[in-house]
C-alpha cells in the first residue's frame, strides 16, 4: 500500500502550469527518483505536498489520511519531512541545535510543560541529542557539530539540511536536490543513509539533476515536464527513452 | 536658624507643554531675583529649585520626590492636572504643601490637605465668557468647537451649560481630534448650524489655524476662546481674520495695571517678545511673592519652615496682595476666585472689552 497518494493534483501560477493532473504514489521501502528539466515543477510538487502552496484541485493522502486544508506543521506531524532546495537552515543555531529541532516528538512543545514537567523535558533533550549525534556521525558532520551553520560551507549546509530532515522519523521523506553542491565523495555516504532509511519502511522521493546519483539510489524514476508526469519506470528505462533524453540531456 | 529658604518649582521644561512651562519658570525666576534684591526673607535669600516634569505624571513624581527628599523643600509649585494629581499623595504623605498654578481640573479641591491652588479653576473664565456672550452681547445661538482632550471636553461642557442657563441655545457642539491638521469637517457642521457666536476651546498650537479656516469657509461671526490665544502673534498670523476674536484673561492686562505694563515691557526688552500665555506667567511671577510672605511670617516668629508650619501660616494669613494678579484669598475648598478680563481684537489690536465678576 502506498504511503503517500496523490490524485489529480493541479496547480498553476497565472499561465504557468506547475502541476497538471498529477497522480503519484510513494511506496514504503522505496526510493523514487524525480527528474525533469529546470522549471518542470518538481519543487512545486513538494511544496504542494507539504502545504506550502495550496493546490487548485486534487487530493493528497498520507497513510490513508487526507491532508486537505491541513497547515504545514500538522502535515509534518503526520509524518512528512523534507529538505529545501534553498537550504532554509536556522542561521542563529549551531549545527547540532538545528538538528535538535527535528524529532517528531511534540509532547514538550507547550510552554506550560516547561514549567510543569522539567524532568520530562530534560530527558527528551538527552534523547534528541543522542539521536542528533548519531545522525551527524552517519552523515560525516560530527566534527563541525557545534559550528554556527552560517560558518560552514555550502556543501556542508546541504548535508545539515538532509540530516535535519532525517531527525524526523518520518513516514515519507522528500529530498530536493540534496547533492547539489556536495562533493562526489559524499555520494556513497548519503546513498547508504537513504537506502537504510528506505529499508526501514520509509517512503522516499528524491529530486536530483545528478543522474548517476539517481541511478544508483532509486528503484524507480518519474519524469516530469511542464507540470506533467510524462513517464514512470526504472531510471535506466527513462534514460533510454530517446524523447526524454532529448528533453533532459539535449541531443 | 535658617540661612536660606527653599521652595520647589516642577514645571514642564521639555515636551509638548514646554512652550508655557519655560516662560512661567522664567517669570518666577525674575520674581525670586526681585525678592532677593529687596532683601529676601528678612535678609536671607529665597532659593528656587527647578525641576522638569515634561507634564508627565511619572517624571513629575520623580522630580517632586527629588525636591522633597534631596532639597528638603517645604512647599513646591507645580502645574498641569496629570502632574498635580500624581504628586498629591507625595505632598500629603510628606506633609509638604503643593501649590498648583494652572491645573484647572475641578477635582483639585479633593486631592488632600496639602494641595492648594492659587489659580482660579477652568470654569471661572469659561463661565464668564459664556455668560457675557449670552447676556451682554445678546447672542442666542452658540456653537462650541473644542479639542478632544480632557480640558477641552471639560471646558466645552461648562460653556454649554452656562450658555444654556443664560437663555441661549447651543446649536452645534463639535470636537476635533488632537492630531488633526485640518478642521474643515467640524467647521462645516458649525457653518450649517448657523450660530451667531462660536466658542473655540483649543491649544495655542492649532487655534490660529482653526480660526483661519473658519474665516476661509466664510464664517464671520465672533469667535470667543480662553486665555490660550491671548497673544500678539495671533494678530500677526491672521491679519484681518483675527477681527472679532475674543479672549479671556484671568489676570489684569497691560491697561489695568502699570506693574503689568512694566512686566510685559521687560519681556519685550529682554526676550524680544511677549510671554507665552501672559496671564499664567503673571500667576507664576506672583507665586514666589506668596511663598516669601509666608516664609517671612514664619521667620519673624522663629518657627521652623516645615511643610506643616507653612500650611498653617499660609491659611492663617489667608489673603495675599500680589503684584501682578492682585488680591488672592484661599477659600475653604482649597481654591481661589478671581475676576475675568475679556479682550477683543479690534482694528488689529487687542483691546479691553469687559471685566466680569469684579
Amino acid at each position, binding site marked *: 500500500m502506498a504511503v503517500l497518494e496523490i490524485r489529480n493534483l493541479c496547480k498553476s501560477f497565472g499561465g504557468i502550469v506547475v502541476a497538471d493532473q498529477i497522480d503519484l504514489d510513494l511506496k514504503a521501502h522505496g526510493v523514487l527518483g524525480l527528474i525533469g528539466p529546470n522549471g518542470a515543477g518538481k519543487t512545486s510538487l513538494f511544496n504542494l505536498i507539504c502545504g*506550502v502552496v495550496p493546490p487548485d484541485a486534487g487530493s493528497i493522502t498520507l497513510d490513508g489520511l487526507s491532508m486537505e486544508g491541513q497547515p*504545514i*506543521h500538522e502535515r*509534518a506531524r503526520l509524518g512528512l*519531512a*523534507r529538505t529545501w532546495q534553498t537550504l*532554509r*537552515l*536556522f*542561521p*542563529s543555531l*549551531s549545527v547540532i*541545535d538545528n538538528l*535538535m*529541532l*527535528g524529532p*517528531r516528538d*511534540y509532547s514538550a*512543545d*507547550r*510552554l506550560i510543560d*516547561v514549567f510543569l514537567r522539567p524532568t520530562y*523535558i530534560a530527558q*527528551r*533533550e538527552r534523547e534528541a541529542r543522542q539521536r542528533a549525534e548519531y545522525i551527524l556521525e552517519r552523515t560525516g558532520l560530527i566534527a563541525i557539530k557545534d559550528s*554556527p551553520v552560517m560558518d560552514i560551507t555550502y556543501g556542508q549546509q546541504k548535508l545539515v539540511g538532509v540530516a*535535519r530532515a532525517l531527525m*524526523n522519523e518520518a513516514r515519507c521523506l522528500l529530498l530536493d536536490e540534496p547533492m547539489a553542491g556536495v562533493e562526489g565523495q559524499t555520494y556513497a555516504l548519503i546513498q547508504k543513509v537513504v537506502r537504510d532509511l528506505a529499508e526501514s519502511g520509509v517512503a522516499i522521493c528524491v529530486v536530483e539533476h545528478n543522474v548517476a546519483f539517481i541511478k544508483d539510489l532509486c528503484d524507480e524514476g518519474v519524469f516530469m515536464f511542464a507540470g506533467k508526469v510524462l513517464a514512470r519506470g526504472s531510471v535506466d528505462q527513462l534514460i533510454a527513452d530517446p524523447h526524454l533524453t532529448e528533453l533532459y540531456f539535449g541531443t | 536658624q535658617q540661612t536660606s529658604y527653599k521652595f520647589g518649582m516642577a514645571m*514642564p*521644561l*521639555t515636551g509638548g507643554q*514646554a512652550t508655557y512651562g*519655560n516662560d512661567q519658570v*522664567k517669570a518666577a*525666576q525674575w520674581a525670586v531675583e526681585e525678592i532677593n534684591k529687596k532683601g529676601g526673607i528678612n535678609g536671607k535669600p529665597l532659593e528656587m529649585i*527647578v525641576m*522638569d516634569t*515634561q507634564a*508627565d*505624571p*511619572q517624571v513629575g*513624581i*520623580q*522630580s517632586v520626590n*527629588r525636591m*522633597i*527628599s*534631596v532639597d528638603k523643600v517645604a512647599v513646591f509649585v507645580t502645574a498641569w*492636572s*496629570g502632574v498635580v*494629581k*500624581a504628586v*498629591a*499623595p*507625595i505632598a500629603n*504623605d510628606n506633609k509638604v504643601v503643593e501649590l498648583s498654578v494652572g491645573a484647572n481640573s475641578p*477635582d483639585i479641591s479633593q*486631592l488632600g490637605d496639602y494641595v492648594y491652588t492659587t489659580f482660579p479653576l477652568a470654569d471661572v473664565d469659561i463661565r464668564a465668557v459664556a455668560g457675557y456672550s449670552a447676556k451682554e452681547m445678546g447672542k442666542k445661538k452658540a456653537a462650541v468647537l473644542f479639542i478632544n*482632550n*480632557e480640558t477641552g471636553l471639560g471646558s466645552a461642557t461648562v460653556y454649554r451649560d452656562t450658555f444654556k442657563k443664560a437663555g441661549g441655545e447651543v446649536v452645534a457642539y463639535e470636537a476635533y481630534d488632537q492630531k488633526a491638521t485640518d478642521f474643515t469637517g467640524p467647521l462645516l457642521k458649525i457653518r450649517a448650524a448657523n450660530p451667531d457666536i462660536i466658542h473655540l476651546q483649543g491649544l495655542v498650537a492649532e487655534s490660529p489655524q482653526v480660526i483661519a479656516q473658519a474665516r476661509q469657509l466664510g464664517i464671520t461671526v465672533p469667535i470667543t476662546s480662553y486665555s490660550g490665544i491671548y497673544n500678539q502673534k495671533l494678530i500677526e498670523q491672521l491679519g484681518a481674520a483675527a477681527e472679532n476674536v475674543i479672549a479671556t484673561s484671568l489676570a489684569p492686562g497691560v491697561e489695568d495695571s502699570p506693574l503689568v505694563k512694566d512686566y510685559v515691557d521687560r519681556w519685550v526688552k529682554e526676550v524680544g517678545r511677549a510671554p507665552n500665555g501672559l496671564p499664567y506667567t503673571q500667576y507664576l511671577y506672583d507665586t514666589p511673592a506668596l511663598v516669601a510672605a509666608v516664609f517671612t511670617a514664619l521667620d519673624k516668629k522663629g518657627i521652623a519652615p516645615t511643610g506643616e508650619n507653612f500650611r498653617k501660616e499660609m491659611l492663617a494669613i489667608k489673603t495675599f496682595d500680589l503684584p501682578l494678579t492682585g488680591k488672592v484669598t484661599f477659600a475653604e475648598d482649597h481654591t481661589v476666585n478671581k475676576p475675568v478680563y475679556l479682550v477683543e481684537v479690534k482694528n488689529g489690536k487687542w483691546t479691553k472689552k469687559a471685566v466680569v465678576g469684579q
Partner: protein
Amino acid sequence: MDYLYSILILIGLFIILASSFDLVIGHCGLISIAHPIFYAIGAYVSAMLAKHNIMPIPLAMLSGGVVAFVASALVAVPALRVSGDYLLIASIGFQLGLIELAKHIHEIGGAGGLTNIPSFLIRDYGRESYVVLVLVLAGLTVLFIKWLTQGPYGRMMAAMRDDELAFSMLGRNAIWVKVSVFGIGSGIAGIAGGLYAHYFRFLEPDQFGLLQSSAVLTMVVVGGLRTAWGPVIGALVLQLMPQMITFFNLPPSVLGPLQGLIFTGLVLVFMFKRPQGLLAAPVIWTGKAPEKRGA
C-alpha cells in the same frame, strides 16, 4: 529617602518591563511596541479591584497579570497570523485605541486619571519593604527569562525567528509559540503594572503611550537585545542617567532642553561605542553550558 526609593522602584519595574519586552521582541522576534499597554492593563485592573475591595491587593496584582495575559491573546491571535511588521501596526492600533477608550470611561477616571489607589505594604512595613518586593520580583523575572530562553524553548524561539516556514515544516506550530510567548511577556508586564499602581497611586491613560514604549524599547536595545542582563543594565543606565543630569545645576532658562540634549547625546555616544548594545548577544543561540545540559 522617598526619592531614592522611588528611583529604585522605578528601576525595578523597568527591569521587569524591559526583560519581558526583550522576551517578546528579542527572543521571539515579535515586533510589537505595545508592551506598555499590558503594563497599563495590569495597573488599572489591579487598582480597580483593590479600590473597590473586591480582593486583597496581592491577588489583585496577580489578576492584573492574568487579564493582561488574556488581553494579549486578543492582539496576538488575529495579528500573529500575519506576523512581521503588520503585528507592529496592529499592536499600535490596540495600544492607542485602548488608551483612547480608557479616556472615555468615567469609572476608571477617564482622561483625568485614576486617583486614590490604595497603597500596599507601605503603611505596615515601610517603604523599604516595597522596594525589596519590587527588586526581588525583578530579579526573579530576569532569572526566569534567562532560564526559559536558555532551555529547549529558547532554541525553538530562535529557530522560529530565523525561518518560520522551515520551522513549521519540522512539525512545530509557530503561531502557538508566538501566542504563548507574547502572553507570558504581557502577563509579566501586567504584574509590574499592579506594582506600579499601588506604589504611585495615580494612573493616567496617556502615561502608557508611545513615549513609554520607546523608553522601554530603548532600554532593551541599548542594553542588549537577547541577553539576560542587557535589559537590566539598560534600565539602570537609562533610569539613572537623567536623574544624575538633574544634579548638574544647569541654568533654569535652558534646563529642560539641555538636560534632554545631554541625555540623548550620551545615549548616542553609547550607541556608537557599542553598536550591538552595551552587552552583545552571542552570534548564535547557546543553551545552558554544555556540561550542565549533558547527563
